[in-house]
């Protein structure tokens, strides 16, 4: 698995976990009576908290992923080169590891193009979510549901963007 695909998959995974936690929180709070259909203040607070958590989790997952991926590359390189006591060889292996890590994390033109194309998929998905929420509003459903549809559609848009990215990396542009 390449760096880009592994990174995207971790993003999808963390996004899915966050979405599930959010949905569980909303439904449990609603059933407990903590969230009322007409009182949007508590829902707004919950959404803000989850946006904050989402940003924090994304940053933390990115950092942990990069550390683990770098360790993975280093381990692979050291297994490839036989373990020896020669200091010059050790330095050479270290240089190779550094070079490989840098090489893996390169953001080139293809990555940028895939980013652009997949973000378009994300925008379209969030647009559809917005449209759905407007339709729900027009049908006379409470704003509580409309806001939730909007919030969930942003999460789903992020995931669709990630899936599109994986698709483009696998199939090519």
């Amino acid at each position, binding site marked *: 698995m390449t760096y880009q695909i592994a990174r995207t998959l971790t993003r999808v995974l963390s996004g899915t976990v966050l979405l599930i936690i959010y949905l569980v929180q909303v439904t449990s709070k609603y059933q407990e009576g903590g969230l009322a259909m007409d009182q949007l203040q508590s829902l707004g607070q919950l959404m803000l908290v989850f946006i904050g958590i989402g940003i924090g989790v994304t940053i933390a997952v990115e950092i942990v992923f990069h550390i683990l991926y770098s360790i993975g590359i280093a381990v692979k390189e050291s297994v490839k080169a036989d373990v020896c006591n020669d200091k010059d060889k050790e330095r050479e292996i270290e240089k190779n590891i550094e070079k490989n890590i840098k*090489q893996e994390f390169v953001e080139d033109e293809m990555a940028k193009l895939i980013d652009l194309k997949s973000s378009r998929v994300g925008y379209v998905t969030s647009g559809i979510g917005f449209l759905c929420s407007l339709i729900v509003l027009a049908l006379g459903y409470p704003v509580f549901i409309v806001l939730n549809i909007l919030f969930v559609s942003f999460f789903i848009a992020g995931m669709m963007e990630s899936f599109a990215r994986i698709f483009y990396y696998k199939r090519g542009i």
Partner: protein
Amino acid sequence: MALQFEITNDIRKLRFFADEMTQQQLAEKAGVSRQTIVAVEGGKYNPSLELAFRIAHAFNVPIDEVFHYTVTEKKNRKDKKGDRT
């Protein structure tokens, strides 16, 4: 009949003649990721003019020795039907 354009490349052959240069080595020379080289070599991604020149430069050959532009005639459905009758 519609015209079909295709960009092919001889990167695999050139790597072989360049002392079996690895995709990683070529990626380093061209300043891109290995994944991009894999995609270009497999015809899954058409590189920009700049990257195409950089790849050619890595092999020390002119660009037209690496990439080839071919135009073929693609038969559309109507033509195919006409052929059958």
